[in-house]
């Protein structure tokens, strides 16, 4: 099975289904489904060029799910909230442009918060059917190959991306304070 199902500590009822796709070829189709609000596409589609690490993604998921449980999400649903949670600032549309799928997205991380009526097998089938890209393991090494350091420096206001993960996680956690 290529899809990974992740259990976040303390959130065992909200498991995450994740597939990392390399060389995406239908970014505009996926973006269109989100813009049209197609309910078959309830995913967080993340542009892998601005991802540092698994921890960064998991921290965004934790915050989004926790904010959902506390009924204080800033965006429509938990999946858009994951995209928003990656941003270090409060601008929602900017966060979608920067971290969500766009016309130019080359590599894509698809995440679905589980616990709904669809089982992992159905989620994986649906994703592999509609996302045109090569599934690869969701690892820090793969993310490091995919990232665009100049973009990362810009969105997180960094001079250097080396050892910056802690600052990125901290900035995400303090967002909105």
């Amino acid at each position, binding site marked *: 099975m290529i899809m990974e199902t992740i259990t976040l500590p303390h959130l065992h009822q909200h498991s995450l289904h994740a597939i990392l796709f390399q060389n995406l070829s239908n970014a505009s189709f996926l973006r269109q489904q989100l813009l049209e609000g197609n309910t078959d596409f309830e995913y967080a589609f993340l542009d892998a060029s601005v991802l540092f690490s698994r921890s960064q993604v998991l*921290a965004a998921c934790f915050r989004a799910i926790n904010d959902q449980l506390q009924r204080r999400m800033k965006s429509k649903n938990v999946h858009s909230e994951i995209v928003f949670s990656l941003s270090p600032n409060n601008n929602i549309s900017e966060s979608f442009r920067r971290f969500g799928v766009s016309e130019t997205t080359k590599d894509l991380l698809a995440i679905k918060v589980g616990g709904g009526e669809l089982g992992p097998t159905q989620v994986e089938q649906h994703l592999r059917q509609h996302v045109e890209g090569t599934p690869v393991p969701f690892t820090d090494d793969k993310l490091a190959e995919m990232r665009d350091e100049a973009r990362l420096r810009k969105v997180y206001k960094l001079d250097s991306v080396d050892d910056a993960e802690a600052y990125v996680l901290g900035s995400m956690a303090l967002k909105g304070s």
Partner: protein
Amino acid sequence: MADLHRSSTATPTELHHQLPPPFDHSQEPFELIAQGAESLLFRTTFLTGSVSDGRPAVAAALKVRPKKAWRHPTLDKRLTRARILAEARVLVKFSGEGIATAGSSSGRSGKSGRRDKVKAPKENDGRLRDAVPNVLGLDWEGGWLATEWIEGPMVKKAIYDYAKMASTMSEEGGVQNLKGLLRRIGAVVGRLHAAGVVHGDLTTSNLMLRPHRHHPKAVGSRASDDDDGSVSKVQEAGTDNLQGEIVLIDFGLSSQSISDEDRAVDLYVLERAFGSTHPREEHLFPEVIAAYQESMNDIGPVVKGAKLGAGDVVVRKLEDVRMRGRKKSMIG
């Protein structure tokens, strides 16, 4: 009350009433490490390594500030929020030291930031980055802050263990190691002050001694190197367990300050705490002061007249504080 002071692994159900959501429905283990007047500290997992996940558990420190029923709810919320955020902002600011683009630090430092720029900010070499725990997550409404778990003993325990061993060791070598530890403490406190922050509660319980790591931010692929490294460290520990990197924890009472008075009080609190916790080693405390003075003179802000370094000024102030105690007299 008293039995809560000991460290204990409790099943989540025993602690549910004290934990904010989502931890009140967690299946992860919580180990109560410490309880103070304001907060509870747990060791648990965060982000990676759920009990129901195959991945190895990564330990995290979870600080919870429970609701105080006797406080007005609005005031209680405001205080909890302010304290969680004050602590987190300091930690995040330091985690971005030497990395974050100048002026973008989340802990907006206001006046102090501008003042520091008068001199080329030499302290921005990133060395404080590894001297505080990293923030993993927080919720200022729920009243919790999750940070990286710092491995290693408290400095307090390291010095107690040293004292036990001291009789069997060659006297001179042991003392040199202890002096080295004290100098590292002084240097890191100087660095902290030079960066515009006072800790507010410096004790040997709030200083950790983290074993040296070969690759500070090693990723999984290099785990085997690290394992070898830690094994040899453990073997070495018998002869010298005062080695390691000083990590400052518990910034719950910290504040952004560049006042000499606040800095001197910070040192004074440490001096008094050290004296009462380690009376037999108290005579060596001047090592802390000397290293602090050097470190502040070296990296601290330039003082107006420029005859004295920033460290000299604080140490002079410390003498005043010793004369009168921590609280400034409000009379006259």
